């Protein structure tokens, strides 16, 4: 282990603010994008369902 305590890990030799802001904002942006896409996710359109029905009927 590189760090002796949690406080030392968070401080990162005095650069904690810069490093954690960089990682924090990146994580926040990615999470926001995932959540936005999850909320926008489409229900299977009717043509998908039609196609599935078609497959079940055994059409080539």
């Amino acid at each position, binding site marked *: *282990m*590189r*760090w002796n305590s949690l406080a030392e*890990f968070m401080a*990162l*030799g*005095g*650069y*904690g603010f*810069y*490093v954690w*802001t*960089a*990682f924090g*904002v*990146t994580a926040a*942006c*990615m999470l926001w*994008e*995932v959540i936005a*896409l*999850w909320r*926008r*996710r*489409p*229900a299977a*359109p*009717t*043509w*998908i369902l*039609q*196609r599935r029905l*078609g*497959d079940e009927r055994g*059409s*080539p």
Partner: protein
Amino acid sequence: MSVTTINWFRFSSSPAFFPLAGRLIPWCAAAAILCMAAGLYVGFFVAPTDFQQGEAYRIIFVHVPAAWMSMFLFVIMAGWAALGLGLRARLSFMMMQAVAPTGAMFTFLALLTGSLWGKPTWGTWWVWDARLTSELILLFLYLGVLLLQASIEDRRRADRASAIFALVGVVNVPIIYFSVQWWNTLHQGASVSLTAAPKMAATMLTGMLLMVVGFWMYSIAVALARVRCLIAERERSTPFVNELREVS
């Protein structure tokens, strides 16, 4: 004995591609989470402290992957644009549109994390040097593509206009890449290149490459999720009657 041939052109139509994309997303997402978790572990617990920059250098594990993705995704977006213009394929234009917001996000993050790295090491948040300015132009090019898509009412004209814009804008990518060689800049040269041995410790490189692979997988998963939204939203009004006959 029967030879099964996969008709790849089948997947170039939206009805076939929609479920395929849906099946790929969980695998890419799982790979992204695994690679990023491993990359963060190596980056924060295995990689040594830099003898010049102390712990500040650890921003590299998010800055370099974001900056690389910003450029990769623009090239990929331009590739879909060219394919869309050449084949007049709607799905190619939709892929182009699906990549753009993620590329813009990574460009913004590359600029922001670079700024947070510049302050403690260079003493300034921002300088108007070649690398930083060309990356800022990349952000404007992404925004241009997104704005053209959003502002033109007619779908086909919006696709063509933003595709041409992306194809013209892609010349900026090599300018960003070579900016540290062509101009005298504050930004350091490439630490990793195809032609020379990496100028960094092996564990640092491992952590960074794990994050790069994680960001790649993330981008693929997100782009596929977005293209599914776009397919569903665009085709809602036009039933696939003709294409249904084609595939079934």
